[in-house]
């Protein structure tokens, strides 16, 4: 054997040669009946327990949901709720009584929930200026804030439809005549507070127009501390959404009655949106939602059934 032959042989062994000849070592799985049944069974065996654990977590969450938009309008105004809510001269006070049906361990999260509210509408989503939120009036390129950009030729801070339509119902919680302490700090994402909303940016010329949308802002508090605004400006994904209002840092016992004094300021009547108040504890998985657990169980059982069907057919029709 000559040198060149040897060299060629050696070359053949190299990975590159195998690569060019498309003979790289490869794993070639084949769906044999054994594998199919194993995979189906395995999926079932994993998914059903996971689903049950998830369901358990979801069930452990105690949640009180109270829809108040309809009943908080006094009887005489119920024919025209829109003019009621738009009329500043009428007081918007309203009281709700929530009965705790199960022990709720602190922290209890307070959410307001809006339905049929398209925060994800493109026109709405675009109408904001992240630069302005961070840098304030120094920043001028706020054309994206149309149509809420200027008022009386002065820039509006924060500009845009999102800020303009700030949710402004307020809630007070009283249990046995004592006001429950509601922590309204740290309800927004930390990154939002620190990096998206300026610490030295103060509301300016906000809600001064002829048409007033939602809530007003205290012009002496910087945007980074206006957590309600920050939460609101975090756009919701779907037209039905909850937003964090605060936390009750006391446990609630069974049969406790919580009286909620709320200001029903926010107009959802014109688009027949619902308003709900939600008190909820949380588990390691978050809030109450059985869907995920059920879906896991469903998928798990389906694959068990498939395994069974496959096995039966396999045995019935032998090759």
């Amino acid at each position, binding site marked *: 054997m000559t040198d060149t032959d040897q060299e060629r042989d050696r070359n053949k062994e190299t990975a590159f040669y195998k690569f060019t000849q498309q003979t790289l070592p490869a794993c070639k799985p084949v769906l044999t009946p054994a594998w199919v049944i194993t995979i*189906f069974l395995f999926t079932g065996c994993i998914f059903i327990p996971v689903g049950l654990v998830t369901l358990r977590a979801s069930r452990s969450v105690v949640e009180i949901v109270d829809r108040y938009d309809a009943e908080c309008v006094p009887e005489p105004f119920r024919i025209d709720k829109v003019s009621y809510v738009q009329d500043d001269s009428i007081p918007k006070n309203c009281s709700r009584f929530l009965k705790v049906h199960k022990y709720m361990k602190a922290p209890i999260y307070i959410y307001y929930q809006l339905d049929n509210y398209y925060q994800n*509408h493109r026109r709405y989503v675009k109408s904001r200026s992240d630069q302005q939120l961070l840098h304030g009036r120094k920043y001028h390129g706020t054309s994206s804030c149309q149509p809420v950009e200027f008022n009386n030729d002065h820039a509006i801070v924060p500009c845009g439809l999102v800020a303009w339509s700030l949710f402004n119902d307020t809630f007070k919680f009283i249990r046995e005549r004592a006001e429950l302490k509601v922590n309204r700090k740290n309800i927004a994402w930390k990154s939002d507070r620190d990096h998206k909303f300026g610490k030295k940016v103060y509301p300016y010329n906000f809600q001064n127009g002829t048409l007033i949308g939602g809530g007003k802002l205290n012009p002496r508090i910087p945007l980074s501390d206006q957590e309600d605004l920050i939460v609101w400006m975090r756009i919701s994904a779907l037209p039905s959404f909850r937003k964090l209002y605060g936390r009750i840092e006391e446990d609630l016992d069974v049969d406790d009655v919580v009286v909620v004094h709320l200001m029903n300021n926010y107009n959802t009547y014109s688009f027949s949106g619902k308003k709900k108040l939600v008190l909820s504890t949380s588990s390691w998985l978050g809030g109450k939602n059985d869907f*995920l657990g059920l879906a896991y169980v469903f998928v798990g059982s389906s694959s068990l059934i498939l395994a069974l069907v496959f096995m039966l057919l396999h045995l019935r029709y032998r090759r």
Partner: protein
Amino acid sequence: MEMTRVRKRSIHLSKLYSLACFRPTPTDEHAQIGQKGYSRVVYCNEPDCQEQIRLNYRGNYVSTTKYTAVNFIPKSLFEQFRRVANIYFLVAACVSFSPLAPYSAPSLLVPLIVVIGATMAKEGVEDWRRRLQDVEANNRKVEVYDKRSCSFRESKWKNLRVGDLVKVHKDEYFPADILLLSSSYEDGVCYVDTMNLDGETNLKLKHALEVTSSLHDAEMLKEFRAVIKCEDPNEHLYSFVGTLHYDCQQYPLALQQILLRDSKLKNTDYIYGVVIFTGHDTKVMQNATDPPSKRTRIERRMDKIVYVLFSTLILVSFIGSLFFGIETKKDISGANYRRWYLRSDKTTVFYDPRRASLSGFFHFLTGLMLYGYLIPISLYVSIEIVKVLQSIFINQDRAMYDEETDRPAHARTSNLNEELGQVSTILSDKTGTLTCNSMEFVKCSIAGTAYGRGMTEVEIALARKRGERLPEPMPIDDVDSGTSVKGFNFRDERIMNGQWVKEPHSDVIQKFFRVLATCHTAVPEKTESGEIVYEAESPDEAAFVIAAKEVGFQFFVRNQTSIKLHELDLVSGKSVERVYKLLHVLEFSSARKRMSVIVRNPENQLLLLAKGADSVIFERLAKHGRAFEAQTKEHIDRYSEAGLRTLAIAYRELDDDDEYRLWEEEFMKAKTYLTADQDVLVDELADRIERDLILLGATAVEDKLQKGVPDCIDKLAKARIRIWVLTGDKKGTAINIGYACSLLRHGMKQIVITLESPEIEALEKRGDKEATAKASLASVAQQICDGKSQVARELLTGEPPAEFGLIIDGKSLTFALDKSLVNRFMDLAMDCATVICCRSSPKQKALVTRQVKSVTSKTTLAIGDGANDVGMLQEADIGVGISGVEGMQAVMASDFSIGQFRFLERLLLVHGHWCYRRIAMMICYFFYKNITFGFTLFWFEAYASFSGQPAYNDWYMSCYNVFFTSLPVIALGVFDQDVSARLCLKHPLLYQEGVQDILFNWLRILGWMFNGVLSSIIIFFLTTNSITGQAFRRDGQVADYAVLGVTMYTCVVWAVNCQMALSINYFTWIQHLFIWGSIALWYIFLMVYGSLPPTLSTTAYKVLVEACAPSVLYWITTLLVVISTLLPLFSYRAFQIRFRPMEHDRIQILRSEGLEQEHDTAQRLSESPESPETRISSDLISIRIDNLRASPRRKNS
């Protein structure tokens, strides 16, 4: 000094070609010189003169590039936007700057730029390569005459001008089209190799005009002045019309004096010439036309799918804009604003409740952009990348590398790869394609005795057909391979090694080989190692000289007057030198069918030595020369039956008397005649002397079948590919060759369509053309009908039905392709596994190809090696050129070139199948992944009141096609293998998957699309229902728009990549890297992008790190969604593989059960495609064949 010495040694070879010596005679065309089309004027040796400059002919600079530096950008952009999908994206990119765009302009532009840029870069690189070739050619050196210094100076090709005098040396290429003035031979001949032009390898003789052939030294050239008037630049390689005005005389010029660019000077030390055509005016450049561009079936269907997707896009956008319009219109009712937070009072036209329909229309445009993800922007570029890589693999395949000729397989166009996997009919040339086209001397018959013990492959096949046991199963080429001589495969111990002297007719044998050694026009050349090689006009002739040499009659010197041989001296037993004086050569021509030489041997005998077709020689035999006629005739018949080419050998002793002198005188006179009937006169004279011959014997030369041809054809037939052979051979030879290469197999029934019936011949003789044609047509129609009914009967009664082979001759073919018959004929032909068309012309080859293509509407592949196959190669869907002896013409016109016919098996069954599968899967998958993605956007829209807000961040979307899903799909397209190469070859039936197109039929495509929609539904609804509504983390935070986007996107990336993992069966580290890497890349991207300042990253700011990653819900939702999207496809695959397996599934199962050995080196593969295991599973194959056979028929009924 040097020059003169060379001169002395040079031989007047032109004398050898006394008959071929061509003196141009003025033709009709010469009268047209100076008129339109014949207006070129060249002032020889005066390129600087005013007149020449005024004519302003192009320089010799050649550019074959498609683009220049200036027009590259606009022209290649224009090329890009000729694709409808790209136009869509261009329009979308333009609109993206308007407020209509649902996402930011850069996020749309960047992928478009990447995609277009990649394609343009590819174009650019290809063009750059062409440019480098041009630069190389333009900067080659040639010696140009400089009048001032009266010497030749080196100059670059590109600086050459019309009228320049050049000197070209041996083995150099001609830099332009040149008029030959003189050469190193005194009579002004030179030899030219035109391989690059027409692919012919034999040397061509060119001949200068006598008036110029004396121009030899630089001094003489200084005074040389002449004017050439000739035709304008044109593409006809085989014609030239011009006149030379020199010394107040006109001399007609013809092609004989023209040396074309790209041909090479051979066997001649140097030539002088005048440049006539330069650069792009040269014939070879004028000839360069773009080959017809071919598109594959899959690509054509892909276009249709893109149209389907476009319609879906329009439909979806329309639905979206309809709802949007309705919702928007409802926003104002009287003075009430419904969704007050949208400020319907202060709005633009894009969202105006008062002009809702206009807003709806604009929203339609927005929708077109938003759902544009349904159209895979990167599909075209990905396919192109994949195909280029695939062809690199084809080029690299060692198993298709021909060591003998040092030629790997070469995919000349990359865009037909997958079509290789769908070939239903192969049309093949015979000579040089199935056979080697290198003639081998195998047998001879001398003095009535047959010599040569070897069996030809045809004989072996015939014996096999008769069921005889073969005495010697080894094919002859494997024996004594160490000592084998190219062109010689004669083995007979009675002749070889000097044993012939002991034979009874040793004197005849001696004469026989002397004829072979002297009667030819070959030129011997000593190689450096001292061996003698021969340059011959045809491979047959070379075979004779080599045979003579091997037997002991070594021809080693030829000069103008003599031929020298080394011969065995019978008395002394030693090798002695014998000189034969060469007096005349009577050249071979197709009309004469013979050639002879007149020589004077050392014994001073005057001999005429002749060889020629048996019919011609036998009728010229003397009465006393017919001693062995009967036996020889019998042998010749037997040889031609065995597929050999035969020639009869004879000689005549001439009397050195007045009769001969008289003849010689007349002959010399005739040769110097300048009239048109000179040829006739010379022929007549030659005929007069070539008579009263004495028969010596006959030779048989084999055009050997290429290695592995029968096995290859067998495999292709097993893959149920129809094979048509189009050959110029006689019917008998064609049938025998058919058996030899297993085109016609044992148990196959033959249908022969021919016009060789006595009635028709009788009609022909009468010369009534119309009646003949009518009768022929009727006869062919009748034969087709008979054949058809024979096939029908067989289908009913045969158990199992036998295969059919159809043999048709060229004349019948003409009638069979007649409009009235062609359908019936093709119908019959389609029922036959093999069709052999004998005696067919190149034009018929192309015609048949077109008919097969149009009638079957399936893929046809033509394979050939010669210039006569070019039409066929270009007409077929795929042209495969064999880069063999006949040169490059076919290769140039082909789409793929291979060194040997047998590589076709691997090219089709392995690479074709793989490429087809890869591309089909890839396209289906591409649509799947884009539909999945696009429809999640649509479902989200339904929950965003169709406002056009995308579900994801702009940059997630633009990275989707480019980063997170592109690499796995390319890996699929380049590397996936359903079964290994070895198993592909072992189970040829697998190939039918491509022919029947079952991996890319509409059902499958729609299935994948449906799967995409299903996946998108699962992803959207499971995700939204799982994570929105309630808190999605322990700390009570809810999932907002950004979190939902990330979660859905994560699920999409996981789902499409896992679907990929599920649908491929071949994981090397590359697949693992690409698939899992793409998923990892998404997380990495999200982290990097999320850590950018919030003004850049917007909704993605810290979304993974802060919001999603700490949430358990995010992770378990991903798991649920991914498994749920995989479950439908997985279940389908599991049940389908078990209960309705496709061919590749079957093979995979066999392999996984250990019934098939997988690992085998590629080397052994190429050597022995047939292994013992094949036989074990052959019963399995036959069962499957039956299954397959049954299925199409069911379809028909």
